[in-house]
Every structure is written in structure tokens, then in C-alpha cells.
């Protein structure tokens, strides 16, 4: 069953931010690049347990990621969201990281989906304004997901996030390309949901091996 999605637009920090939202529970703000705000099967599944707000970041410009991060923080506040979980897909991960650095008290946990905020060796991207050196100070629990078939954000890139972020957990999603939530929605939602509920404790299995009592 798919969730009922409302859509709208927020003016914040000089940007028009389009969003869709559905579900109730803790808020999950999910940032996507322009053109990526369509509802994926994974968003429907996540909306069963979370208030999911999918925001499309303007692509033209391109605006500085720090400014976009401030705008998203304002937009969330104007939607009545004070503390939230934050996801960043692809290059929107850079904005998500900036937002977590700017407002560590508001971002409970970060989910980076096939993120493209770092190079393979952890070196800054061209035009980086000091993001990389600040990452070592980011204590926010972070889950970074990579598809094993992704060529844009290859799974080897996970190492760079583990090395740079003090509280980052890398999970590889088998047989997935760049759009992990579209390629493997059940596998994606299962680990994201577990991480958002339990944070670091998600590494401990809750499954019982008992066959019959």
C-alpha cells in the first residue's frame, strides 16, 4: 500500500525548495538532487514508520552547498521540524553533511546514500570549502550505503567515509547500482530503518536462531 503524499514548496534562504511528505513518526528529511524528488518505492516503505519529507535541491547554479544546507534547515523549521534524521542521496550528501556540521543539535542521525561528497582517497572534491577537514569533528551517527555495481559512487569509496567520519558505518548493498533505494528497496529500507531506530546498536542482531521452543 502506498502512502498518501502531500507536496508543496517552501521559501528559505533565497531558495524555493519543493518537497513531498507522508507518514508519521520521527522526521526523516531526505535530500535529493534536482529532478530526484519523485516518490520511490523505498520512500513509501519508510513512510510506514517515519514522517518522510523528500526535498529536491535546486540544481541550477550551482549554489554553494553550505547555503543550501542553511536553507534546508530553515525549510525544515518552517515545516515544524526541529530535530530530525537526515538522508542525502548522491551529490546531495554534501549538503546533508554541511547541515549536520552547522546544526549538530538538530540532526539525530545521517544516512548517506551512494554519497558523492568525497573522492576515493578521501580528498576534497573540486570547490570544497573546508568540508573534508571538518568531518573529523562530526559525531553524528552516520550510515553510508554503497551499491556494489555503482560506478558513480563505487563501493571502494566507503573507506574514505569510514576514515574521515568518526561515527560512520558503511553498508554495501549487493547487486545495486547508483539508485540504491530504487534498485533494492526492501534491503535499503530494512537497514535504514534499523539504523534510524537503533543507531550504533544496529550492528547487534535482534534475530533469534531458535527454530522451535
Amino acid at each position, binding site marked *: 500500500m502506498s502512502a498518501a503524499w502531500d507536496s508543496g514548496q517552501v521559501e528559505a534562504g533565497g531558495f524555493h525548495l519543493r518537497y513531498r511528505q507522508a507518514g508519521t513518526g520521527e522526521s526523516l528529511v531526505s535530500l535529493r538532487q534536482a529532478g530526484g524528488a519523485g516518490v520511490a518505492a523505498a520512500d513509501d516503505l519508510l513512510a510506514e514508520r517515519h514522517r518522510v519529507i523528500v526535498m529536491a535541491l535546486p540544481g541550477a547554479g550551482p549554489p554553494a552547498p553550505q547555503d543550501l544546507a542553511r536553507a534546508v534547515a530553515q525549510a525544515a523549521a518552517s515545516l515544524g521540524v526541529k530535530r530530525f534524521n537526515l538522508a542525502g542521496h548522491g551529490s546531495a550528501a554534501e549538503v546533508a553533511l554541511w547541515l549536520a556540521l552547522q546544526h549538530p543539535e538538530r540532526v539525530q542521525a545521517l544516512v548517506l546514500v551512494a554519497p558523492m561528497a568525497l573522492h576515493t582517497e578521501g580528498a576534497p572534491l573540486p570547490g570544497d570549502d573546508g568540508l573534508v577537514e571538518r568531518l573529523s569533528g562530526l559525531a553524528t551517527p552516520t550510515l553510508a550505503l554503497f551499491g556494489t555495481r555503482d560506478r558513480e559512487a563505487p563501493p571502494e569509496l566507503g573507506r574514505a567515509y569510514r576514515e574521515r567520519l568518526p561515527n560512520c*558505518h*558503511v*553498508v554495501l548493498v549487493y547487486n545495486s547500482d547508483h539508485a540504491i533505494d530504487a534498485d533494492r528497496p526492501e534491503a535499503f529500507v530494512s537497514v535504514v530503518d534499523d539504523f534510524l531506530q537503533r543507531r550504533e546498536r544496529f550492528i547487534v542482531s535482534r534475530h533469534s536462531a531458535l527454530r522451535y521452543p
Partner: protein
Amino acid sequence: MLDVMSGGRVVAGMLRGTSNEYVTYGVNPAESRQRFEEALELIVRAWTEPQPFGWQGRFYEYRAISIWPRPVQQPHPPIFMSGSSPEQGEFAARRRLGVGFAVTTVPLAREAARHYREQAHLAGWEPTPDHVLYRATAYVADTDQQALEDLESSGGADRRPSHSSNNKALAEAVAGTGYYGRDAARQRARVQVRELRERIELGQFLVGSPDTVLAQAAAIRRELGAGILEVSFPPLARDKVLRAIELFGTNVLPRMREL
């Protein structure tokens, strides 16, 4: 760990497992190929990732994988897998892995090796003889006659039947799950029970004097382009087996290097 203890000499043989094993462990054989392919990718990733990682697979799910010690061989030890079925030959060719042929016959393995090479060529590489392994049982005696007599009188040529080899209904139950792929009849022919003479003729069993066994090894090298022969010796009396190993080591193996 073995790679570290052996100074980087591990060669990994990754096998899907026989249908008997799936029955024994209560695992559905219909999913065996997909499970194998995922498991192989996961193992290679575990060998090569320097940082801990989780895995959201189709059949496997782990939150934090981190192996220690890391393999000595970089990026990882060489991998062989069974190349007997067309599906596996294609997978090995795509992944640039070596193939092994076991519990088969030389004519069946020759076809499978040809398919593997064709697929590798399509994938842009050419396997060398070191990518192709053939496994057989060998028994060497001073003469051909002696070798045959030893085997026939000891029952050493007998194979233990599997749960399904003498029960057609059980064999059908396994085959019906889709364990075998698109050439099921051929795959099932591999495990068919055969008489000693036929096994020798088909290259399943290398039997005879050192010259005869060398000629059989040469045929395998030629027909399959196999650069690696893996041999085991049958369970005969201790002195017979030791003699067979000695003859193989002194009169067959040194001459095999020149094939």
C-alpha cells in the same frame, strides 16, 4: 589465516556444493546458484576491504564484516570454481576466475573448457593453462596389468553411492528443484555410476604403469588445455598406495612438467 601461515600460497577453490549437500543441510537447492554468486562476491569483498563494512545482500545480511589477519596475496588469493556447467563457465569467465573440472569425464570437461574460453574471449581476456584444473583419481603400479588387478581385487575402484544414486525418485526430487541449469541431462551424466574400464576410458580414473598414466595426463593437457592436474589416490592397502604415490612422484610427475 592460511594465506598468512603459508606465506601467501593459498589457492581458493569455491564450489556451489552438490545436491546431496543441499539435502543434508536442509538448504533449498533451487537458490544454490544465486547464493553461490553472492557469497563469492562477498568473500572477495571481505578479503579486499581494508575497513569494516556491512552487507545487504539477497541471501546474506551482515552489519559489520572485518577479517583479520588480511591475506598476504594482494589483491587476494587466486580463486578457482567449478566450470562444469555452462552457467558457471560464464560466471567464471566474467569474473576472470580459474575453473576446475571434477567428478566429470574428459569429453564433458573438454566441451565445458571450450565454452569457458569462448566466454572469456567475449569478456576480453584469454585464460592460460594455469586457469584450468582437472581433478581425477590416479593409481600407478609397475605394469598396466598389475594396476588393474590391484583395483579389481581390492574393491578400491568402488565409489560410495550418494543418497540419490541408487534411488531414482530421490534423484528426480533434487533435479526437479532446478538445481541443475540449462544442460541438466549432461550434468546428471557426470555423476552416473560407471564400471572401472569405462571410467578409465573417459579419463575419470588414471590407471596403469607410469607410461600409461603419463599418456592419460598428456591427453587431459591436450584435450582441455588444463595446466593443473589434481590427483587423489584410491583407498587400497597401505603398501599399494604408497607404491602408487612413489611411482607417480618419481616416474610420472617429473615428465608431466614437460608436457
